[in-house]
């Protein structure tokens, strides 16, 4: 097994300022689409019932992104108004990736003041504990390094397609 550790990085401030000015809909759509794809396949709907009608904001601090969405009977959808969300989760890009990869514990990041959960804390606990309870296929950030991607691309090009 590879012992890859996600390096500590932050997106430089000029890019953060740029991110703040970019339209937030494309990244929000990407996130909402990914979440909807995961529904039923990875994330069971039943524990999420408490989330119905709730409004969420994810702030990716160093990318200058503020993603607003809600959850309803038909899944996740983007929100277009900036009214008060029920739960806001803020962290840097690196830490969101580390959480997703189960490389960091949210409480550790909270103690270290790198993760902030504002609004309905119980809703936040439900989200955190539901995600923690899911058996994810191994997400290995080592597979996303440029060398590894290049290696996999080469391997794929070298393999003749059978159909």
């Amino acid at each position, binding site marked *: 097994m590879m012992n890859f550790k996600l390096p500590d990085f932050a997106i430089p401030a000029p890019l953060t300022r740029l991110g703040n000015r970019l339209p937030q809909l494309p990244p929000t759509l990407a996130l909402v689409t990914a979440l909807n794809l995961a529904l039923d396949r990875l994330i069971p709907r039943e*524990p999420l019932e*408490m989330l119905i009608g709730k409004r969420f904001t994810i702030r990716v601090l160093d990318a200058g992104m503020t993603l607003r969405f809600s959850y309803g009977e038909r899944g996740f959808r983007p929100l277009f108004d900036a009214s008060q969300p029920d739960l806001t989760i*803020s962290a840097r890009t690196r830490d969101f990736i580390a959480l997703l990869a*189960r*490389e*960091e*514990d*949210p*409480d*550790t990041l*909270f*103690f*270290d*003041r790198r993760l*902030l*959960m*504002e*609004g309905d*804390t*119980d*809703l*936040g*606990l*439900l*989200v*955190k*504990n*539901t995600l*923690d*309870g*899911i*058996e*994810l296929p191994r997400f290995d950030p080592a597979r996303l390094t440029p060398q590894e991607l290049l290696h996999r691309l080469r391997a794929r090009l070298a393999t003749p397609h059978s159909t």
Partner: protein
Amino acid sequence: MSAPLELVCPAGGLPALKTAVDHGANCVYTGFRDATNARNFTGLNFDDASIKQGIEYAHQRGVKVLVALNTFPLTDNWLQWTAAVDKAAAFGVDAVILADPGLMEYAKRNHPRLRLHLSVQGSATNYEAINFYHQRFGIQRAVLPRVLSMAQVEHVVKNTPVEIEVFGFGGLCVMVEGRCALSAYTTGTSPNCQGACSPGKAVRYEETPAGMETRLNGILIDRFGQGERAGYPTLCKGRFEVDDETYYAIEEPASLNTLELLPELMRIGVSAIKIEGRQRSPAYVTQVTKVWRDAIDTCRRDPEHFKPTAAWMAELNKVSEGKSATLGAYNRPWK
């Protein structure tokens, strides 16, 4: 030497259980998804399907599964607790961790082959109390409250046939275990009867110009300045104004880390070492289990020359609550 020191790791869900098993836990302790255990937080813990899967996974790999049923039932909900004991026995858990004597009596009478552990919530700090639980209910292991010095732990071990389990690592509180009323006073919910200290519904965090504020049921209990490490939102770890001075009036958030005491704990005959944190994520369980497995194995090979490595300490400090790690009461020269 007596039986090897067991490493007892926490699991709030199936992925945490599996990672504890994979990284060298000897026992994993768990809870059902209700008030029958002292980590009754929203979305946490095991439903029937996941506990069955967890027990199967652990048993296939020679690891034991313990279920904490360590809260205190009341007259009107007694049947919920006895049903939980029945369920644990039916699923084939290796032991249940109990605090309520009535429940111990129920378990002994109805499931005579079920192994019983005395929870830290039972708050038994002397061998007379532990031996009473042993004689009366057949308790086979007791988890000691985190208030005893090393000499006192040794005194207990020497005077009881019951296996002794101690806390080795994790968050500390005021340690009035099973009897703490601070959370109930502020939020109406206690760890003792409802299974939650500072339940999520009572907690609010807010970033303000003065820092991050933590409120418990609307009461400001702490404010963390820029870059200052935060702690859990419990009343005991809050900062309060006393005589015009604002400080940790009850205690400062700190984590227990007894890694350096391992040779001593082994020498005095402690049977098991417990890692706190069923509320934490699989990432924490992985990190902490790895370090403690490695440390226990190293210490067993050569206890004389055992010294915690800087890498172990760094890994444990990283996941710790508060500014400091402490040896707690273990390292208390006075009696």
